């Protein structure tokens, strides 16, 4: 009986690989999603621009639609300070506080 070939992924698949029904494999493994608001009426919505071309123009329009069509109270726009930083580091606290 030969030895089994070991699994270098420890049984997990690729993150984000599509599953039937639209679910994404692995995204929820060990990570809880933040609570979702039931709707946006009266909410102040934070939008994080990633510095890509036209991201600001696009998110400005998204913000306008959230206020005009979905009842958001206001939009708080911020820009990533550096590559690969999920919430721009020190900006995280600022955004949460505001």
């Amino acid at each position, binding site marked *: 009986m030969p030895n089994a*070939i*070991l699994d*270098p992924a420890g049984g*997990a698949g*690729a*993150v984000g690989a599509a599953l039937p029904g639209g679910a994404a494999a692995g*995204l929820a493994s*060990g*990570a809880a999603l933040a609570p979702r608001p039931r709707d946006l009426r009266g909410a102040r919505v934070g939008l994080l621009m990633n510095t890509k071309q036209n991201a600001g123009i696009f998110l400005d329009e998204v913000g306008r639609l959230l206020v005009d069509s979905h009842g958001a109270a206001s939009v708080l726009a911020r820009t990533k300070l550096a*590559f690969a930083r999920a919430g721009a580091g020190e900006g995280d606290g600022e955004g949460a506080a505001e």
Partner: protein
Amino acid sequence: MTEPDPDAAQQAIEYCYAQGWSDGLPLVPASRPLLDQFLAQTSRDPQEIIGTLEQTGRHCTVELAAINAAMAGCRPEYFPVVLAAFEALMTDRAARGGGFQSTSGPAPLIVINGPVRGELGFNGAGGAFGPGFRPNATVARTLGLIVRNVFGIRPQVLEQATQGIPGRWSICIAENEEESPWEPASVEAGLPEGTSAVSATLLRTCEFVDNRHTQDPEQVLWDFADTISRTGSLIFKETSCGVVFCPEHAQMLAAAGFSKNDVKDWLVGHCGRTANDLRRAGKDGLNGPVRLPAGQPGAPDEFSRILPSRQHVPVLVAGARNAAISMVVRVFGFWTGTAVAVETPAGALAGQASS
């Protein structure tokens, strides 16, 4: 020893491909006896978590790292270097915070210092950036397999590299300490001389500077400044960019009186572009830290520096003493200046005795 069975080996390799574990090249099929050889090289608990990617909720254990090292083609005795390299890379916030899935497709730069270079055969001389040397090639490849298999980040799924960069998962160099006029990166990081250690960061790319033309150190440094300062690489107001000097360039600079910090200070002071250059590329304005076209032209000759401090300019030495060819290494996030000591075989034996 019986002859290896090539047909069985081919079947095992194809099995690994079919599971989606490969980076495109054949993997060494890992088995329990091979894994045990890797785990015997460290005192660490196989289930110890050595890295977490918060955005995916995935954890890398010592055992999973060992399986990927085996599959990458490492010999078991490389495993303490793999553990140090992974720990060093994970000190880089860009690696923890989304760098592996970035459109930039950045590559780890792994730097080996100390006696382990000679003991295991890491190359830091001719062809330091590879290929041709098993320790360099397989330790770097291991990190790529960990990202793919353990963190689950695969190209065109969560990994969104627009083009990627040549050399991703293959850039591992030993410092040529014997021909460097300056202290090794590990000593600069605060470890005692003679310590085997690994430093790592993510790179956006490597670009050669070939200057065999002058013996004037400032002219040579200007040549580096030109490559470092090219506008195509500038996204934010500030950047981080290092140089892996070949021994000839390093020795010429040292002979002219430049310490490592003198070189860094010179580059900090001279790398940058004029407002006119930046305007030509649509990068003369700023929105916070991000460059964009300015509405109004400023003073055309106003000079903007791009390297804010010495720590943004890692300086290393590698390569052969046969030409004046060095490499500019464009840092993706920030060089932490951390060197992680490599566990010694004595440490592994002690750990096993106590467990």
